């Protein structure tokens, strides 16, 4: 009977073992890369909204305060998206007839909500509290980035648990003086200065660092 396998079959077998191994590894690696990709986590991806509301225009050019619309961010756990009526306070005079505002008028006239797309979407098992952070000396820009420079909003951090923990383990790196929380232009001092300033602020705020990494702080 003729020999079925030629001598080079050994080589093929050897190569194919490696090919399979690399393919599997590559597939897994690809999955991991995809999982961590900005696209998957929606980082730095501008989000299309029903009304192309420009924070750049409102916050920067017009100088409106964050809390004019996001009134509950400093008081309670949830920062609110303003009700349609808040827009109307100005827009019943300003740019009243702009085509871009059509969804607003539709909302006001029909008493239907405007379906804003959630940009910062934490997992449902995370209980984040805005007020505690804001009153503890953590500014808007620390998590949300320079929203005041965004024509449409995007997320600047991936907001994974690792990212949260970075700050929960080292709050002194990100804390700022209480009166600077709402300051969109705030710049952290050089690392060495921030280290001492941060530690001092953490102490002043009565932040108990060891408690910050308890699971129950965010998960219940």
């Amino acid at each position, binding site marked *: 009977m003729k020999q079925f396998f030629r001598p080079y079959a050994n080589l093929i077998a050897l190569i194919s073992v490696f090919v399979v191994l690399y393919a599997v590894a590559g597939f897994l690696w690809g999955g991991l890369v995809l999982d961590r990709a900005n696209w998957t986590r929606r980082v730095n991806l501008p989000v299309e909204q029903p009304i192309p509301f420009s924070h750049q225009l409102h916050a920067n050019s017009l100088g409106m305060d964050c809390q004019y619309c996001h009134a*509950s961010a400093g008081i309670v756990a949830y920062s*609110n998206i303003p009700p*349609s009526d808040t827009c109307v306070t100005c827009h019943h005079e300003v740019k009243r007839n702009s085509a871009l505002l059509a969804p607003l008028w539709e909302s006001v006239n029909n008493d239907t909500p*405007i379906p804003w797309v959630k940009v910062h979407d934490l997992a*449902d098992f995370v*209980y984040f509290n805005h007020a505690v952070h804001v009153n503890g000396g953590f500014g808007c820009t620390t998590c949300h980035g320079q929203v005041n420079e965004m024509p449409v909003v995007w997320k600047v951090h991936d907001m994974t648990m690792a990212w949260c923990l970075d700050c929960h383990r080292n709050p002194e790196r990100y804390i700022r003086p209480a009166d600077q929380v709402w300051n969109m232009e705030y710049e952290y001092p050089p690392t060495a200065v921030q280290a001492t300033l941060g530690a001092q602020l953490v102490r002043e705020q009565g932040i108990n660092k060891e408690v910050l990494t308890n699971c129950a702080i965010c*998960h219940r």
Partner: protein
Amino acid sequence: MPHTTILPSGSDATRNQSGINELSEGSPAPRLSPQEQLRDFQARMELLRGKQGKAYWRGLEELADTPQFDEVLQREFPRGAAEWLDPISRRNFLKLMGASLALAGVTACTRQADEYILPYTNAPVGLLPGVPAYYATAMPLGGLTTGLLAKSVMGRPIKLEGNPKHPASLGATDLLAQASILTFYDPERSQVVFNGNNQSTWANFVANIGPQMTQIKAANGTGLAFLTEATSSPTFAALMERLLADVPNATWYQYEPLARDNAFRASELAFGRQVLPKYDFTKADVVLALDADFLNSGVAWVRYAHDYATRRRIWEGDLSRLYVIEATPSATGTMADHRITARPSEVEALARVIAQRLGLNVPQASGLTLTEKQEKVIAGLVSDLQAKRGRSIVIAGDEQPPAVHMLAFAINEALGNVGQTVAYIETPLVQPRHNFEGIKELSEAMGRGAVRMLVIIGANPVFTAPADLDFGAKLAQVPFSVHMGLYRDETGRAATWHIPETHFLETWSDGRAYDGTTTIMQPLIAPLFNARSPIELISVLRGVELPSIDLIRNQWGVPANDRFNTFWQTTLDEGLVADSAAEPVNVKVDLGSLPPAPTLNSGGFEVIFRPDPTLYDGRFANNGWLQEVPKPLTKITWDNPALISPRTAVALLNIPVSDVANLKPEDYEKLSSANGRMLNITYGGRVLRVPLWVTPGHPDNTVTLYVGNGHTALGVIANGTGFNTYSIRTSDAPWFGPATVTATAEQYKLVSTQMHHSMEGRAIVRVGTLDRYRENPEFVKELAEFNQNLKKSLFTGEWEYNGHAWGMTIDLNTCTGCNACVVACQAENNIPIVGKSQVAMGREMHWIRIDRYYGGTLEDPMMYFQPMACVHCEKAPCELVCPVAATVHSHEGINSMVYNRCVGTKYCSNNCPYKVRRFNFLQYVDETTPSFKLMRNPEVTVRSRGVMEKCTYCQQRISAVGQAAKVQNRPIAANEIKTACQQVCPTGAIVFGDINNSEDTVTAMKELPLNYAVLGELNVVPRTTYLGRVLNFNPEIGGDVGITYFVEQHHGHADDHGGQSDGHGGHRK
């Protein structure tokens, strides 16, 4: 190909060789051969025979100590519990697994779908997103209201708390109020108007009712009858009055299956008018309950339990003493210092004996022979009552005949209690007719064809009316009938029209509490379904269609445009109309019309009808929380068996026992196998087939039936669950009467949570007498099984808790086992129900359970309750064994569950000495029904299949207060955080707080001498500790706590505590 199926050994359900009451689904499948098994069994029995009764036992089966029982004890979850139950074949399962694995891989790489934020268009003033608002309202039940603060999150009511300013609540509620939030969101509530079997509309109904009413009015209302539930609503009464003025010949009947006719009749006979007593238990040194379960059911029991508890805290003052004479074991009986049982007909005879010995001239019943214990207790009771003139209370149960109530009135008067501990007030109920006479009259009129139009509001008489009236058949003869109800129930289906009724959380209404305090009830939300309120219906019958708010405002004289009416604002804000409580009236008892003394007939059986401890009269039967919460004493869920005494079971089933008078442990095993045997109960000529449950402490030859279960047309939860005991109830004897009882050979599967989580007879509940406490206030600490200084732990090093340290104490002196905490926890923490078959496998999910322990003998046991939830061990055994660190400790001492990490190994539960962890074996939470989504507490994660869970000390409440304090830059105040179980507890038995804060009440509790840790000997350092119970026996009578603790057995405590022979300890040798 050889067929090798890998299946768990217990899955072969046919191999049940035990022949003993099946404790778990699937077979116990012992690995011993039958002969070995028998030998083993006999050996165990031999061992037991040497003992004089393990005086501390839990459940009949525990005493039996059978191999089957051992198996149940030793298995973390009963056999079969972990196996796949769904009707899916193994092949399908593998297919599904393959698909889900593939999908799991894919989903990890896809990104999440967009979510939307839908803000208001015009936000309500003052609404902050996610911040709960509380509205004062009230819950009506049996015509009387209990004040509530309803928690609303973003417009959805999600939890009910008691209104601290309301006299019937004082901040607590019962379990029915807790569970009514589930009824509110019940998707099976009636949603559509029905005309016969066709869906219709409200407008259609209004168009139809107009001509009908015109006709009836022309006849001055002849042929028109109203049947409503009991009510105390001033608006409803005023509207009815106006309507009846239009139709003077119409009749208004009221029917509550649990009506207080007996008390009203007694009041008419004794005082010539309808006044009812109201009690002040805070001033009572001695209390006698004549078959009155005033601590766990009946009028204002939440308030009465609260008041009674103030006198059972020995660290606050002298203890009161509670005597209970009862015909069926009740929660009040478990709280008694002296409890005697009597057949229901004998209670009156005993009351007459007591009255006579107190110097009242009342004729005595013939045929009564007092047992030795009854004689002894009554003698002691009488001298106690005489010594405490003006500081005692005699209270009669609503189920007892008028004579018992009259005797209670007379004794209270003779002892000078009236004006001190007892006050008489006009009843807040509107037109309290005699319900049973009324419904009898109505059904006779219906039978004669004298009723042309019948309007039924709220009631469900087809189901609840006495069976001899045959209400359903007669209703079919009424040409035009309207039924308004929460459900399209048995009556709703029989009526010409059915109108969905609003739940009390979605309509304006008013009502009065037991003491007359009036509440204007405000809605939390617009009606979920297309429902109307009773006052709207009455108004439409008068030809005026007005919304409930206008009717209420009109009644209270508040114009709709008066937006700043102070009365309106304050009343709604406070939850009650100021100074609306009824004034006491002066009445004198006249015993002249006391019904003649009965002649007792000791032979035959007697049947007792009682409200279901969790379902009330059956209106809550479609509420899964209430069906699944174990009944306080039997721990049975999803059923209502007939309760009988052990001795009766022996006689009825011819169980061979050596000595009936002195039931021994080896007999108990045979007794427990009787549980679930079907009985034929013949009462008033009708037969009910119902399973039996052997209940220690039940009087002999008496059968207790709970009403309310066994619906046929309420909803999927209620239909076919339990047994309809109304089907044999009669209008002449609705509470008790003679019956014949025979056993059948049929066996029915009853499910009790009693056998699960057994802790064996250790010093779990620690009880002592007052004498013992006086001798050594710290006696509970000595009852530990072994040296508490054993400081061994797998945890190395000591951890310092410098910040907050959360802890809890539970007072066993005041826990009445009412289950309010169990249901409150369920509502607060999104805990699912699992159904009867799952409970049978020990898979119930309640984070708190209330253990019930017996001490003493089968015939006359002492009963003890102990709530048990995760005790948050500082050195938690569960944490060490979790391979994925899904259960970890916080720096504040809370043992947290991280659901996302949990992979479901269940090792933690294996290693938990308290057996308080609950595992989601299947997808128990209903994630699809829209109305249930609205109900859930948004602050608590909804757990899915495969995840372990347990008490978190209401972490969400701790966080909410802590974060608010942080935002306001202040420390958490003392006692600022209340857990759900603590907040609901009527007696304040549960105290939670920061044990590092000396101002917190819990810190003071932990320093009390009675404070002890359950299984503290294990050095797990639990944060929840218990306050041992002190029983206040009358020295004249003596008593026995019924428990001999191991430590006492080993040390021969009788010598240590001389002169305590009757004081404590049980079966000494």
